[in-house]
């Protein structure tokens, strides 16, 4: 559970005795060549497919460009337009709503289901399989399946509602419901991951601690509140970051359920970037929107890490 890379990076002692006849400089060059032969190909691919394009995007964001005609330099004007763009405002609002619904739900459901799956009861293997299996289905397939389940005419969701005597709903075809339904579908596909992670974290909580608390007279709920929850804290910080990134970057599911509709009600910032770049060919403006999203994501991540650190200090 502990991330060890920071401690180990500099602690490689010189292990190999220097053979007497060789000059140290030749050895350094040889070692460096060997090291890069090992690490180079993967490093070049990973860095070349992310940092290099990210820098390029910065320059694209300073142009007006449709991808074919020569680009014209517009300086910072794209960013000025982002701030005034009503579509961008709506997309940002949908993104915030989706994230605010998705992240706490995923974490709470993950903890709840993980606690349930951590019990020693019959059928537990069956339950685990059932709950984890949607995670391996692609978001695209999940979206197609969900658009059938939530189909207003023939779908299973309305069938259940009518069986319960509740009014029929439009779900993904209603501008006021679509975003919530998308969030529910995303939870269905992603909660398995949060559950697995919390289950592993729960099994890492020292048994002695729990037993000691029970000996001291704490009830089950108190044990959970004062022993289990603090132990889950680091995992929860990680899950908050992970699920926030998942929500902010959600694309596949929106593409195969609503394509941003109805009436743009599920158009998130990511989907808007896709539309700008690949549907309306406004590459420069799209890159500017993407950069703004990047900045917000970074700030949010830092805020969550900072909050986690501060909270951690208060707890001890």
């Amino acid at each position: 559970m502990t991330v060890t890379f920071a401690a180990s990076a500099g602690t490689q002692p010189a292990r190999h005795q220097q053979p007497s006849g060789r000059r140290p400089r030749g050895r350094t060059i040889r070692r460096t060549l060997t090291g890069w032969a090992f690490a180079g190909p993967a490093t070049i691919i990973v860095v070349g497919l992310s940092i290099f394009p990210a820098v390029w995007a910065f320059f694209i964001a300073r142009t007006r460009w449709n991808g074919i005609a020569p680009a014209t330099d517009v300086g910072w004007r794209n960013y000025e337009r982002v701030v005034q763009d009503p579509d961008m405002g709506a997309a940002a609002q949908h993104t915030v709503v989706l994230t605010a619904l998705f992240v706490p739900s995923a974490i709470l459901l993950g903890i709840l289901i993980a606690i349930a799956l951590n019990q020693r009861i019959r059928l537990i293997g069956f339950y685990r399989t059932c709950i984890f299996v949607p995670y391996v289905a692609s978001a695209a397939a999940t979206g197609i399946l969900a658009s059938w389940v939530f189909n207003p005419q023939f779908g299973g969701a309305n069938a259940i509602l009518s069986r319960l005597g509740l009014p029929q709903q439009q779900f993904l075809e209603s501008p006021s419901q679509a975003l919530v339904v998308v969030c529910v579908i995303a939870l269905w596909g992603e909660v398995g991951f949060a559950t697995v992670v919390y289950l592993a974290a729960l099994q890492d909580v020292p048994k002695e601690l729990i037993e000691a608390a029970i000996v001291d007279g704490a009830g089950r709920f108190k044990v959970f509140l004062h022993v289990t929850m603090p132990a889950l804290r680091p995992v929860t910080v990680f899950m908050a970051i992970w699920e926030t990134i998942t929500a902010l970057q959600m694309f596949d599911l929106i593409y195969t359920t609503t394509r941003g509709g109805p009436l743009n009600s599920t158009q998130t910032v990511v989907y808007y970037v896709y539309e700008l770049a690949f549907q309306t060919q406004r590459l420069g403006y799209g890159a500017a929107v993407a950069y703004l999203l990047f900045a917000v994501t970074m700030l949010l991540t830092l805020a969550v890490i900072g909050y986690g650190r501060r909270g951690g200090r208060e707890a001890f």
Partner: protein
Amino acid sequence: MPVKRRWLPFSPWHLLLMPMSLIFVLPLVQMVLASFMSKKQLNRFPPQLIPTSFHIEGYAKLFAQSHILLWFLNTVLVSTISVVSHLVLCSLAGYGFARLRFVGRGVAFIAVLATVMIPIQLLMIPTYLLFARIGIVDTIAAAFVPWLASAFGIFLMRQFFLSLPVELEEAARIDGAGALRTFLNIVLPLARPALVTLAIFTLLSSWNDLLWPLVAISDDTRFTLQVGLASFQGTRRTEWSQLMAGNVVATMPLILAFLVAQRRFVATMTFTGLKG
């Protein structure tokens, strides 16, 4: 011994877990059943859960009217290349960063870790342009090039190699084996669990990827399953049996793999969550 009071003949956790399990697994069961239903059976309300008769017209039309077989083969090819490349390149790089000392190691490793902070939307436009420059737009290379190696894979392998005792390697080096010999003969055979985790992670990511092939491939014979299904959905919004048949073809290989090797899959998810 205190006698536990039981107000139910079974654990109350079943009251939560049973409906939860059904919520998670019933849609998938429905997907499979619906793929074997006729259009008439599907356009009925309330829907039948268990069909009275089985039909294969969904599959027949899917195979006749789309390139699903090609999409399936393309996806298998993309995933195979991605997994093999990941295993080779990431284990080499992981070993390099874990054990070899060379100029630029620290900077290179930090650069690799920093890439995980860059969101995919920022990369969409320039990566598409990059693919256009190197001439792989509209080829299946556009679907596997993003999965040849990953920061996660390099990190995973590095952490694993750091956890191995160094004495074995030292013995091999003293016996005169070079870095590559030591890596191949001594270290790699010990790395099986990490390699399985990496393979599963890469298989899931590359098989399920929609965005990269979607932006870079428009020739429908070069589609992967995910892009193919999404485009098929766009043109046949109401052909549910065909769409569900396509979904079955696209998801069943991974679901079956999951059912067979659940323990390995769960270990992969755990590692992603706890170390990623």
